[in-house]
């Protein structure tokens, strides 16, 4: 009865099927086949990535919990910071609003499942160019979806990034990071404890949402095909908010042994993973599962990905107390199973056993592959025509008035970025900074990705991305505690793509080992392809840092007329993969800048020292765009002009728009010296931007004129 076609529909290879038969000692029934199919899918099992991810460093002095739980945990000033990034790329392409909204919902649950109250969201978004109306529609939907979910739940979206590359037209990236705070002794894990405990289901009833596409054509469900087509998940932020409050209250009263949200593969993955981790089995009573639709089959109940659901293992005898807390918050909860001592995953429906599988084979021992790969060729071009001099004032305005650099306020003003009143630095520049109530310290958060680097050189791109994230943190005086990451790639069965992946992980590993910062978790998103065309390899790094004392925090309001502008670091002949090339030469490749990690580390150390000594009014790193665009943005937030005098032996473009890493600007009323190159390049003055290059005035313009295009770019596109 299980034939080739059925296996194909379930995305299982012949080999995997043989393995399943070995495990069971018989043929699986259709329900079991479905369970294996989903649990052994790339998404749930990380079968292509696991052996590579294992190379990443996962130890660090601040680490409490590394990869393997719903989210990572680090220490910060006596508290625990719980954080994780997740992708929701494909769903956001199919239905931008709901795809992005449910992405937010999922990552929030990952964090509050661990016992932490979510305090911040950040989003890394990559779309196709906005010259195409279809891409505008996707962006509009995604941004309002994030707002439409995060805002009601009451978690501020405090930072993020948006950028554009052609390849994302058919495959946008929506990576969302959530950060939560809790006490160090109040962390919850996905554990099932001992045999004989109750499994409690809480939250939304189960519908046919998001059931694995593979099931659709399957013969047994023919009569129901009408419903099957509708598997877009719709988010209910109101229910999520109640689920969050109720779950945190249950945790506060210490009523559960373990907990896991029902994400991908819903009830099946949450129950089997908890059981497998604790060396117990699990028995599920499917008739007790609350259902939203009629006629749902065991297959559907077990694999539904309906949102806003939690599964927890109750402490003995606490079932009633748990229920009354969920009742108070208007959330349905029911006992749907129990832990057993036989290490099996068993589902019972209408008095019959519909699935009976060794639980480890679903959760722990899924297949893993060392897929063949080829190391991709690097783009190392540096063309003479890129270096010609131009009217730099015009160039600056063009770059600022482009989708790559224009003000993102149209995006972040749709997000409630202030609720919970911890947001010390508003979005607009650099990392997000949150205070920790009751302390003088704060945390700094950033999320960074640069697909243009990945396309030219995935390994170096990964190193640069990690370095950039930490440099962002350094500008507010924060040292990194840990990172989370999301790896977005095409089809790993293609050796070129697998090669990009291997190189990216290699780069991340190299950088993290160098900095001594651990990965605490992350997410891999493969198969980001449409019609055989893959996205550029894109690693998204989410980093968390600690600021011991917020009173010395640099902020735009601290900058005074007459403050000096210092350039720290090393400017080299780096223009490949830059915003300048994209906007001015319509060129998306070129050599990715080299980075010297020793230099980078000294630079960051020196910035942190200067900030902590209270010498810095404001600081920012030179990220994509280069000196002039980045400085202009800073001046816009400061609301004052500046005069710059720079001297260089390099071609002018490198200084003004080149993207050498390991550089930052510090604005300060003091004389600054440091163990890295420091150049006094100008002064805060008046309301114009005046730039002298090698003694020649190349630009003089009122800041407001420069600002206009930058400030209104997205409004002009989107506000009808």
């Amino acid at each position, binding site marked *: 009865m299980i034939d080739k076609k059925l296996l194909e529909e379930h995305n299982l290879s012949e080999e995997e099927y043989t393995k399943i038969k070995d495990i069971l000692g018989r043929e699986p029934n259709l329900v079991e086949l479905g369970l294996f199919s989903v649990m052994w899918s790339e998404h749930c099992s990380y079968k292509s990535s696991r052996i590579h991810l294992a190379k990443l460093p996962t130890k660090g002095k601040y680490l409490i919990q590394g990869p393997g739980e719903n989210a990572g945990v680090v220490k910060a000033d006596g508290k625990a910071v719980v954080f994780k990034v997740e992708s929701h790329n494909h769903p956001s392409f199919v239905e931008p609003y709901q795809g992005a909204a449910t992405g937010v919902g999922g990552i929030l649950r990952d964090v509050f499942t661990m016992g932490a109250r979510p305090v911040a969201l950040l989003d890394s978004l990559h779309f196709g160019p906005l010259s195409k109306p279809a891409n505008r529609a996707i962006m509009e939907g995604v941004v*309002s979806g994030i*707002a*439409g979910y995060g*805002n*009601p*739940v*009451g978690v501020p979206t405090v930072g993020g990034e948006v950028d554009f590359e052609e390849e994302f037209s058919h495959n946008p990236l929506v990576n969302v990071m959530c950060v939560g705070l809790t006490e160090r002794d109040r962390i919850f894990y996905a554990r099932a404890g001992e045999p004989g405990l109750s499994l409690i289901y809480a939250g939304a009833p189960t519908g046919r949402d998001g059931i694995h596409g593979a099931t659709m054509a399957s013969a047994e469900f023919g009569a129901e095909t009408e419903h099957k087509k509708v598997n877009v998940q719709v988010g*209910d*932020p*109101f*229910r999520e*908010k*109640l689920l969050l409050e109720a779950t945190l209250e249950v945790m506060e009263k210490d009523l559960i042994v373990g907990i896991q949200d029902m994400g991908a593969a819903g009830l099946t993955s949450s129950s089997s993973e908890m059981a497998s981790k604790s060396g117990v089995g699990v028995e599920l009573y499917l008739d007790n599962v609350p259902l939203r639709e009629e006629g749902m089959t065991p297959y559907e109940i077990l694999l539904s990905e309906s949102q806003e659901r939690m599964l927890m293992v109750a402490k003995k005898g606490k079932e009633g107390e748990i229920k009354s807390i969920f009742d108070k*918050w*208007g959330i349905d909860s029911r006992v749907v199973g129990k832990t057993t001592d036989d290490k099996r995953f068993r589902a019972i429906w209408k008095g019959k056993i519909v699935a009976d599988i060794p639980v480890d084979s679903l959760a722990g021992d899924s297949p893993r592959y060392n897929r063949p790969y080829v190391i991709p060729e690097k783009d190392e071009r540096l063309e003479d025509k890129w270096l010609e001099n131009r009217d730099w004032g015009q160039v600056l305005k063009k770059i600022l008035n482009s989708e790559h650099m224009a003000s993102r*306020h149209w995006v*972040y*003003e*749709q*997000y*409630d*970025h*202030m*609720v*919970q*009143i*911890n*947001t*010390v630095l*508003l979005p607009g520049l650099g990392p997000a900074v949150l*205070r920790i*109530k009751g302390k003088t310290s704060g945390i700094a958060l950033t999320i960074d990705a640069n697909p243009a680097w990945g396309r030219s050189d995935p390994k170096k791109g990964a190193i640069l991305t990690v370095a950039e994230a930490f440099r962002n943190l350094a500008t507010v005086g924060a040292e990194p505690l840990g990172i989370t990451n999301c790896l977005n790639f095409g089809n790993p069965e293609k050796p070129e793509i697998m090669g990009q992946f291997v190189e990216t992980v290699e780069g991340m590993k190299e950088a993290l080992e160098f900095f001594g910062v651990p990965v605490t978790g992350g997410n891999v998103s493969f198969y980001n392809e449409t019609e055989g065309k893959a996205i550029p390899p894109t690693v998204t790094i989410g980093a968390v840092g600690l600021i011991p004392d*917020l009173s010395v925090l640099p902020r735009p309001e601290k900058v005074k007329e007459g403050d000096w502008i210092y350039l720290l670091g090393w400017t080299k002949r780096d223009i490949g993969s830059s915003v300048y090339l994209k906007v001015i030469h319509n060129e998306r490749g070129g050599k990715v800048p080299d980075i010297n990690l020793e230099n980078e580390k000294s630079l960051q150390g020196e910035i942190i020292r200067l900030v902590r000594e209270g010498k810095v009014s404001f600081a920012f790193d030179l990220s994509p765009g280069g000196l002039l665009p980045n400085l202009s943005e800073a001046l816009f937030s400061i609301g004052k002009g500046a005069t710059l005098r720079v001297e260089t032996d390099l071609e002018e473009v490198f200084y003004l728009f080149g993207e050498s890493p390991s550089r930052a600007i510090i604005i300060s009323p003091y004389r600054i010296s440091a163990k890295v190159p420091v150049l006094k390049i100008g002064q805060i003055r008046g309301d114009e931007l005046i730039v002298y290059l090698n003694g020649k005035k190349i630009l003089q313009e009122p800041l407001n004129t420069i600002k206009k295009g930058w400030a209104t770019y997205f409004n002009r596109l989107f*506000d009808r």
Partner: protein
Amino acid sequence: MGNRKVKFGVVVYPGTNCDRDTYHVIKEVAEEEAQYLWYKDTDLKGSQVVILPGGFSYGDYLRSGAIARFSPIMKAIREFAENGGLVLGICNGFQILLEAGLLPGAMLRNRGLRFICRFVDLTVENDETPFTLLYKRGEKLRIPIAHIDGNYFATPEVMAELEKRKGIIFRYVNNPNGSLHDTAGIINSRGNVLGLMPHPERASEALVGSTDGLRMFLSAAKFVRES
């Protein structure tokens, strides 16, 4: 009476999300007494000022504030208001007061149809209310907004009446949402129920950007202490 702390009640509806912020500011910054009031409660537990904080009660499904107005606690709030008790509705709290008929008018979707979160400038139009005692008429305040349904609407008659009795307490300097007469906050005719869309609790500590909102809580406390 002297320096006794004033007791603020912060109402929590399902979906309210600024309750903890408001509580924090009253207790830690204004240094008054704060307690939560659950939407199913039927009395106000001795609260001297009742605050309906911001958020998305019932997800803002149906209309913002529309379902919350049926909560059991509304009866107690109504009686409290009828007896002259001070009631402050912030953002979603304002919307609930409108839906409940404790304040006139209604909220439409923002003119641009989008959620807007940003600091805005307001002017204080009337400094003779219990909530604005410590402000000066004409003073400019910097307080954030965060809403999608903040486009205040009322019939011309109601608007005229509001203007006549100086019932518009705060106006936007640059109208962000299309509100009639740039209305950001209004008070009832008896002068004890104030609703406003901006969030004073988000502007009560310098570290998070402004302290212009704090005096709203301090005014209410002073008023209660002195009456």
